[in-house]
């Protein structure tokens, strides 16, 4: 098992490098020179060359990639083309907001999904099961940016109960756990919780009903166990599968929040990414995608290791 964990760690290194390479190559996917945003069209040739040298764009690609990685490892992701500030500071601040939103959405989605899925499995075939299944399929079919808009129309425009924009007083740097800030979190978190809720509901339902039909549960009943004791056994057996799905879903919440953040003007990575795209701020774009993708790689690693620790039957590699 430890061999597997170590091998899994080692395997994450080439993946991380390849991910970095993909992020790096995004610059060269872009049509035109990545510096067109700051170089005026009528700039004389020597000015263009000077700017290119300042950004290191005149060196061979591989050298550029090497020094980019080296600096990224030291926490330096370059300077924003639009603002002239180092992008790392902006990204760190935005990431904390995105994580906050993702945690809130994950909490709602996972709790709701486990509850609905378990109920659906226990009352298999009844109206409860059908309701949970219907909710789950709605959750995965609904365009979440539209759901967000719908919630804004109902709760902000018509009822005027909750705010529709921003993260609360003091903006992103001054977040505290009080109602003034929490009320800003409600709508985006509810909007985002539907997809993980739908997926977790489906997973829990399938896993739990499979376990409930297995022979060892029948044996537990035969031994006279009831209710909570059985639930404990079922939960223990369902945990690895459900956990791995939840881990993936959390990663998707981090990466998938861009649309919801745009709807609610939530000052997170998605909102920042949107800004970067429209200002053609390539260092910022690269930085955000690199940070989010690395988070995702780390998360996958963590889930795999946890899963192996929880279920020693898994021997992969």
């Amino acid at each position: 098992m430890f061999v597997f964990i170590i091998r899994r760690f080692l395997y994450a290194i080439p993946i991380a490098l390849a991910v970095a390479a993909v992020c790096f190559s995004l610059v060269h996917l872009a049509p035109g020179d990545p510096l067109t945003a700051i170089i005026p069209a009528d700039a004389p040739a020597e000015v263009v060359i000077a700017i290119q040298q300042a950004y290191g764009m005149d060196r061979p690609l591989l050298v550029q990639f090497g020094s980019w990685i080296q600096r990224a490892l030291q926490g330096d992701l370059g300077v924003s083309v639009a603002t002239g500030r180092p992008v790392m500071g902006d990204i760190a601040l935005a990431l904390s907001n995105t994580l906050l939103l993702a945690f809130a959405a994950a909490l709602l989605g996972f709790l709701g999904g486990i509850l609905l899925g378990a109920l659906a499995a226990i009352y298999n075939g009844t109206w409860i099961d059908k309701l949970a299944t219907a909710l789950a399929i709605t959750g995965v079919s609904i365009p979440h940016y539209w759901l967000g808009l719908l919630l804004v129309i109902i709760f902000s425009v018509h009822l005027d109960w909750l705010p529709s924009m921003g993260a609360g007083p003091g903006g992103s740097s001054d977040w505290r756990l009080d109602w003034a800030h929490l009320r800003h979190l409600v709508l985006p978190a509810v909007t985002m919780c539907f997809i993980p809720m739908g997926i977790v509901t489906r997973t829990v339902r399938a896993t739990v009903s499979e376990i409930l039909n297995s022979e060892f549960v029948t044996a537990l009943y035969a031994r006279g166990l009831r209710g909570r004791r059985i639930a404990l056994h079922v939960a223990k057996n369902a945990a690895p599968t459900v956990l791995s799905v939840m881990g993936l879903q959390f990663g998707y919440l981090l990466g998938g929040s861009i649309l919801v953040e745009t709807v609610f003007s939530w000052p997170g990575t998605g909102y920042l990414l949107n800004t970067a795209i429209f200002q053609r701020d390539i260092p910022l774009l690269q930085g955000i995608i690199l940070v989010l993708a690395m988070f995702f790689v780390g998360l996958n690693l963590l889930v795999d290791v946890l899963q192996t620790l929880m279920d020693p039957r898994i021997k992969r590699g």
Partner: protein
Amino acid sequence: MTTIASTTSKEKFALAAETAAVSRGYWTTVWTRLVRDPVSVGCAVVLLLMVLIAVFAPLLAPYDPSQGTMLKRLSPIGTEGHWLGTDELGRDMLSRLMHGGQMSLMMGLLPVFIAFAIGTSLGLIAGFFGGWINSLIMRTTDVFFAFPAVLLAIAISGALGAGFINAIISLTLVFIPPIARVAESVTTSVRNLDFVEAARASGAGNFTIIRVHVLGNVLGPVFIYATSLVSVCMILAAGLSFLGLGVRPPTPEWGLMLNTLRQSIYIQPWISVLPGLMIFITSLCFNLLSDGLRSAMDIKR
């Protein structure tokens, strides 16, 4: 919309592949089972209607989708002559929703279709030949799995710039790896079955074995998986347009309409809901139909 990477039911696909090999009247059985399922039939009818309306929109739509009168901006739903109202430039909503289906449906279906062709081929090659070819292809797909799908689509689109073709390219790139992975796992399980061995013993070449013996068993499971991606792709494609990365104005497209009408939610909230509702209904029908197809093809019960 993030069911892409949850390919935990590989065994199920492998099983479906085996049953496909067993019975001769398999597809007939699947068809009768599908037709008996009211939900699937209902969804198929709704989707067919949507496609027909989109295709014949120029004939059916009461107004020109790009012509509006500024005097009639944002008329509410139920206005005489414009019974779904008008948008922020006074264009008829009904006509725009009908025309919008063309782009939205195409952007939902085309990337999955291309990715199905490319991904299946890659998966077949990787699974059939194994060895370093397998490693090369599958490790490359692993890299793409390290990105959440939405992020990858937005990153590629963002770098390439807005536009219909760029959106199609980025969405296709997003869906190739998961399809290749499913195709690879099914191919690997089929490759070692006896009939492949028998074909090889009787002198069939690699190409013939793939075409005659492997392809038929792989296509089914991969096809079900691909159908489940259509709804994801619809939502993602409209999402790209919603961000301004898909088709450009004034082309009618549901995601783009949602984006431009978003500014008017304090004036005419319910009109801005309409394009999103279309995306939702379409994606829900694709999901339900895909689920119906999956259980119809799962003959063991």
